[in-house]
């Protein structure tokens, strides 16, 4: 009886602690801080406020993509198509906006106003998302294969439209407005602010809304969630559409920032988005992870890569570093959760 009471109290004590997700997120955040301090000791001039800001602002696009990818991973699905969609939507936005009287094919477009061109490009992006949803949900092809295919499809269309290079001429003057607008009198650009807003909204959706709850339920136990009245299929369709919408937005903002539609833009971005989600503790089996964790995962990766650059390591190090970081993150997560559950 007393034993039981003690056991009960111990359980209660644990129940009052952080949830597993918050625990892992805290670990990742801790790792980010430790790595930053470590880098500050090793790399000259690393320990600066501006550097912290840069870690975020230089990576706004991948962090934004990470939001959609994280939601999908939590529901138990991959999305590797986002990098291709970034290229596609950027190229399409430029193509639609280019004046229709160019001197050669690559400078001739549809002559649409910038805003309409961008909407059109967004539509193209969402169509790729719809294709993902069709193959994964209706035809039940594994998401990894489907989204590898659509990644190539999207990038392939971009390459055809740009004849393998880029479109950057004959654009309306306001095309670059969105991507280069600075905010609040600082050097921070609109895309970074939009990314921050997206993160805040995503955290809210994930923590506070029914939509967020359903995402976790589907990932945790798809059979039980269906029998509990969740429309798994529709939800996963929505997640793919959402992810492609975000990727489309990122592609358009990048195109606007550089005033060009480049068919190789966003190469490997799908990989980086997956990497930061995994670094942030999102579990591939589904039902576990958080957007905040993904955000700190991005900070970890950015710290590591920029410290490597600061240490004058060749940029070739990035692949090896990413591999090691993801490996350590996965092993650390497994180990930490196992310890937590056995103690």
């Amino acid at each position, binding site marked *: 009886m007393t034993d039981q009471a003690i056991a009960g109290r111990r359980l209660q004590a644990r129940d009052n602690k952080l949830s597993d997700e918050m625990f892992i997120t805290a670990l990742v955040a801790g790792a980010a801080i430790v790595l930053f301090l470590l880098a500050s000791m090793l790399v000259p001039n690393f320990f600066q406020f501006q550097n912290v800001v840069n870690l975020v602002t230089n990576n706004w696009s991948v962090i934004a993509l990470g939001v959609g990818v994280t939601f999908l991973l939590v529901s138990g699905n991959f999305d590797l198509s986002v990098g291709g969609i970034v290229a596609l939507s950027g190229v399409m936005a430029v193509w639609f906006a280019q004046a229709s009287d160019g001197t050669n094919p690559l400078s001739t477009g549809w002559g649409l106003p910038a805003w309409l061109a961008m909407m059109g490009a967004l539509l193209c992006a969402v169509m790729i998302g719809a294709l993902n949803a069709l193959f994964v949900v209706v035809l039940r092809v594994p998401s990894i294969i489907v989204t590898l295919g659509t990644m190539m499809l999207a990038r392939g269309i971009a390459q055809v439209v740009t004849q393998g290079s880029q479109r950057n001429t004959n654009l309306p003057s306001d095309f670059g407005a969105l991507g280069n607008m600075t905010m609040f009198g600082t050097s921070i650009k609109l895309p970074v602010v939009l990314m921050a807003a997206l993160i805040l909204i995503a955290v809210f959706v994930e923590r506070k*809304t029914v939509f967020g709850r359903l995402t976790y339920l589907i990932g945790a136990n798809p059979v039980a969630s269906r029998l509990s009245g969740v429309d798994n299929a529709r939800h996963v369709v929505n997640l793919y559409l959402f992810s492609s919408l975000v990727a489309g937005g990122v592609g358009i903002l990048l195109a606007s920032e550089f005033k060009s539609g480049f068919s190789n833009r966003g190469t490997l971005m799908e990989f980086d988005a997956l990497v930061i989600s995994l670094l942030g503790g999102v579990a591939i089996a589904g*039902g576990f992870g958080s957007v905040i964790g993904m955000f700190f995962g991005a900070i970890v990766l950015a710290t590591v890569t920029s410290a490597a650059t600061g240490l004058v390591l060749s940029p070739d190090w990035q692949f090896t570093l990413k591999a090691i970081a993801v490996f350590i993150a996965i092993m650390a997560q497994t180990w930490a959760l196992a310890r937590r559950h056995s103690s």
Partner: protein
Amino acid sequence: MVQTALAEKALSIKDLTKDYPGVRAVDTVSFDIEPNTVHCLVGENGAGKSTIVKMLTGALEPTSGTMAVLGKPYQPNSTQDARNGGIGTLFQELHVVDQLTVLENLTMGMEVSRFGFLIKSDLEDRVTKTLAAIEPGIDPNARVSSLSVAQKQIVEIARAASSGANIIIMDEPTAALSEREVERLFGVIRRLRDSDVTVIYISHKLDEIFELGDNVTVMRDGKHIATKPLAQVNGRPELIEMMVGRSITHDYRPRGDIADNPVLTVKGLNSHLLKDVSFQVNAGEIIGFYGLVGAGKTEVARAIYGADKAHGQVTFKGRPRARSPKEAIASGIALVPEERRTEGLFTALTIRRNIPIMNINKLAKFGIFQDDQEKSVAKEYVSKLGIATNSVEKYAEKLSGGNQQKVVLAKCLFADADLLLLDEPTRGVDVGAKSEIYDLIRDFANTGRAVCVFSSELEEVLGLCDRIFLMYDGRVEAEIRNGATVDIPKILNIVTGGGKAGT
């Protein structure tokens, strides 16, 4: 084949006992199985048959007692051990590889090779002969995926036989078979017996036992009741009497007259397993569906709930059959599924997170979740259902079976259902929690809402239900009104297949 009086027993079990915390599932059971016989093992659910099978196949370790195969002590630790010890098992779940040929399946794991290369041996001839001896109709070179379930079973039997098993255990092998396939399987079993294999046959279908068995062992409440040649058993009545042995105690209290006010009408429900199922459920009524494993109870529940494909007319509160669980819940139907841990519960989530799932929008305003409300709702249901926990933040996987089931029930109650479908509501639940769950079900029905209980425990339906539908082989065979005068042997007769013969 001359048998001497001193022939070794194929299997002898002595003082076998298995204790679970608080329960003695098998109580000092001793019996012998003669070689080259079909030995049937019968008893109601919970009589201890499957516990014995699990000890024989190495899935469970006996608390005490011994087993011996052909006179040699036998203590398996795994299925593999059991197989090496000469005991093969035909599980209800098939263990064949669909993509390989019959022959490849038969030789799987026994391949003769040198440096990894397969070499010619008599293995293939041997297994082909074994297969041909028990079922010549199966082409050894056919893909297993092209075979029927019955033929796949036969492939598994042949594999067990050719891997040198002296004893093959078959646990409800006919549950998924058609009548013709059952006949064919029986032929196989007889030929096996004639080729020096002993078969331990477990089935609820008493006709099969009389048709096939040489000897029978009857179990009841974990105890051994009798082992004797079937020839000496005086028909189904004697067997049923041995199985029941006592008047089943049930505390059914008639719940007053229930008005003829159907909320659920099912007409001609058909699916891959169901055949023309029709019934009505009135408001305030508790309906029982009783039948053996595989009789179609779960399928009825899932069809009404929109979880499986089915044809037929289902009307609930004037609306047609739900096409998805989501629609069913919206119309006021909630299901407690058969498999609690995999289908009903989110074990990785806390109690608090589990309870509102089936009606999650009730706790949301404009799609935004009301966290504080969730906590108070969870606390309310924890106290209402008497879920034993010190915190609503406890993970569902840490709860006992009974408390897990109460959480699943809480999910359904929170969904504001007018019709509860309960599939095996107290399986794996301890006695205390069981009666609490029964009280909850009665309270629910007393508010004028309807309940369907799908159960393979007779005591459960007799203790709880106002009307009982007896199911056998995908059909509703009979409807009985519960009361003091229920004829239990007759019920057992019907659900074991005696209804068709008109006995």
